[in-house]
C-alpha cells in the first residue's frame, strides 16, 4: 500500500482537520462525534439538508457543505456508514426550527443508522424526513436484494435540493423534490482497478491487466460482471444504453410519518427514459481516472444520447463521488423539468461545487 498517510487510525480525522483549515468561510468541523457543518449554520428559517456516509468518496459529502447545498455532512470510517449520534448531533446543530432532511444513500448500514437518527431527532421535537437515493441500474431487482445502491444521482440531488432549501422550500417540499429527482436519476459505474482501504492494506479485489469490472458500487465491491477491457467508445455506449433502456423500477421505501411518529411503507416506481427527455449528464471519475478520459467518455455519451432522442441540457464532469484511488468512471443521467433545472442553475458555494457566486 502506497498512500499519503501518517497513521491509519487518523486518516479520517486528519482529512477533516485539513478541510476545516482550508475552507473556514464555508464550513466548520465538529469532532467526537464527527460532522462537517455550514459556517453560518443554523440559517434562519431554512430547512437543513444533511447527508453522510462512509469516507473515501471525497469531495462527497463534506466537500458539498456550504451555501446552496448541504448544511451538514456526517463522515464515517472509510467505506463504513457513520453512526446515529453523529447525525443526531449534526441535526441539532444546524436545525433552524424549519426541520431537517436526511439524504440517505441506499446501503443497509446507512439506511438503518439514519433511521435511528431520525427517531432520535423526532424525539427531540425536530421535524425530520429521510429520503433514499437508489439509482444504480446495475442492481436489477429490489425483491431479492437490498435494492438499488445510491451512487452518482446523490451529488445531483444534494445540489438541487440544497438550492430549493436555500430558496425557502418547506421540509415537505424539499422531501418531494428529493424523491422526484432521485426517481429521475439513473447511474452505472465501472472499474479499471480496485482500490485499497487503508485499514485493510491491500486492494479489495484483483483485476487483470486486460479486465474491467462493470456495474460496480462505490465501495470497491465487485460489480455485476467482469469483462475484457474494450475501447472508451464501446464501454460508454454499453453503459449509456443500460441506463437509457432501463425499464420501470419499483421498490418499497420507508419514510417517516411525523404525526404518527413512526415509519410507513411507500411504493415508488421510476418511469424509464423517453425520447424527448432533457437530461443532466454527469460523468464521474472514481478517483484514479483523469479528467481527460472523462471528456472522451462524454464525447461518446453525447453522441449516444442524441442518437436515442435524449437531449443533454446540462453536464457535470469530474471526480465528485469517488472510491478512493480506484480507476474507473460512472455515468448518471437525470431527467429534468423546469423545477429541477432552476435549482440546478441556482448559485452554490461549497469547496467541491461552486458557481453563480
Amino acid at each position, binding site marked *: 500500500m502506497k498512500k499519503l498517510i501518517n497513521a491509519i487510525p487518523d486518516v479520517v480525522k486528519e482529512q477533516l482537520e485539513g478541510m476545516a483549515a482550508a475552507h473556514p468561510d464555508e464550513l466548520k468541523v465538529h469532532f467526537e462525534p464527527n460532522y462537517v457543518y455550514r459556517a453560518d449554520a443554523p440559517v434562519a428559517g431554512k430547512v437543513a439538508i444533511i447527508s453522510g456516509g462512509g469516507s473515501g468518496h471525497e469531495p462527497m459529502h463534506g466537500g458539498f457543505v456550504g451555501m446552496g447545498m448541504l448544511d451538514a455532512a456526517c463522515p464515517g*470510517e472509510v*467505506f463504513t*456508514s457513520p453512526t446515529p449520534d453523529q447525525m443526531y448531533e449534526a441535526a441539532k446543530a444546524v436545525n433552524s426550527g424549519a426541520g431537517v432532511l436526511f439524504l440517505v444513500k441506499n446501503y*443497509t448500514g446507512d439506511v438503518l*443508522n439514519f433511521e*435511528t437518527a431520525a427517531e432520535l431527532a423526532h424525539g427531540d421535537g425536530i421535524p425530520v424526513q429521510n429520503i433514499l437515493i437508489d439509482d444504480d441500474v446495475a442492481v436489477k431487482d429490489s425483491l431479492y436484494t437490498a435494492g438499488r445502491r445510491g451512487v452518482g444521482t446523490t451529488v445531483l440531488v444534494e445540489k438541487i435540493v440544497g438550492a430549493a432549501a436555500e430558496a425557502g422550500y418547506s421540509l415537505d417540499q424539499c422531501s418531494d423534490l428529493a424523491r422526484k429527482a432521485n426517481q429521475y436519476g439513473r447511474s452505472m459505474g465501472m472499474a479499471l482497478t480496485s482500490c485499497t*482501504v487503508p485499514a485493510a492494506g491491500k486492494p*479489495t479485489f484483483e483485476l487483470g491487466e486486460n479486465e474491467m469490472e462493470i456495474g460496480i458500487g462505490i465501495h470497491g465491491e465487485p460489480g455485476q460482471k467482469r469483462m475484457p477491457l474494450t475501447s472508451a467508445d464501446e464501454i460508454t455506449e454499453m453503459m449509456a444504453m443500460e441506463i437509457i433502456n432501463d425499464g420501470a423500477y419499483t421498490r418499497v421505501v420507508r419514510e417517516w410519518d411525523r404525526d404518527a411518529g413512526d415509519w410507513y411503507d411507500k411504493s415508488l416506481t421510476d418511469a424509464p427514459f423517453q425520447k424527448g427527455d432533457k437530461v443532466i449528464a454527469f460523468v464521474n471519475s472514481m478517483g484514479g481516472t483523469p479528467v481527460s478520459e472523462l471528456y472522451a467518455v462524454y464525447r461518446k455519451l453525447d453522441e449516444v444520447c442524441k442518437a436515442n432522442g435524449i437531449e443533454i441540457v446540462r453536464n457535470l464532469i469530474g471526480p465528485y463521488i469517488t472510491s478512493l484511488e480506484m480507476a474507473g468512471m460512472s455515468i448518471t443521467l437525470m431527467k429534468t423539468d423546469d423545477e429541477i433545472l432552476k435549482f440546478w442553475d441556482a448559485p452554490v458555494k461549497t469547496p467541491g461545487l461552486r458557481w453563480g457566486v
Partner: protein
Amino acid sequence: MTVVTREQIVHWLELTVTVLNENKDYLTQLDSAIGDADHGTNMDRGFRKVAEKLPTVADKDIGNILKMVGMTLISSVGGASGPLYGTFFQRGGMAADAREELSADELVTVLQGAVDGVQARGRAQPGDKTMMDALLPAMAALRAGVTAGKDSLGAMEDAVAAAEQGMKDTIPLQARKGRASYLGERSIGHQDPGATSSYLILNALLTALKE
C-alpha cells in the same frame, strides 16, 4: 438454577467482549467473502467501548445495563450491524426494565424483545441469510424449552444448539438482505458473518449461565 442474576448478565457481556475480540479476524474473513470485510472490526470496536463502560453500570438493574450496551453499540459500530445489535440490547433492556434478576420466563421475554427489535429494524425474513437465521431458531428453541418446563440453563442449551444450526444453515442460502444480496448467486456457499456473531453472543450467555 432458578434465576439469571445481574452478575451473570454482566459476565455474559464481559465474555462477549473477549469472544468477539478473539473472533475478530474470523468474522472479518467471513465478511470479506460476501461483504466488505469489516464485520469483525465493527463488532470488536463496539464491544471494546462496552468493556470501557461496563464497570460504571455493573451495579445498576439489568434494564439499565442492557440499554447502556445498546446505546454504546449504536454510537460506535456503524454499518448494518451497529443499529441492529444496538436495537437488540436496547429492546432487551426495555423488556428487562428495572429487574435485578430474571426467571426463565422473564429471560424469554427479554430475549424475545431483543430479537423482535432486530426484526423490526432490519425487516429480514427467515432464509434471507442474515443474523435472523441464527436468532429466530434460537428464540423458538428457548421458548419451547421453557414451556416444556426446562430451567434457563437447559433451555439456553437448546437455544444455542439451534443458533449454531441456523448459522451453518446460512451457507447454502442466497442473500436477500444487506450487502451480500448484491452478489446474487455468488453469495451461496458462504456462512453469514452476522449469523456467526449472533451465535457467538448467545453462546457467551450460555457460558455465563453455566458459571
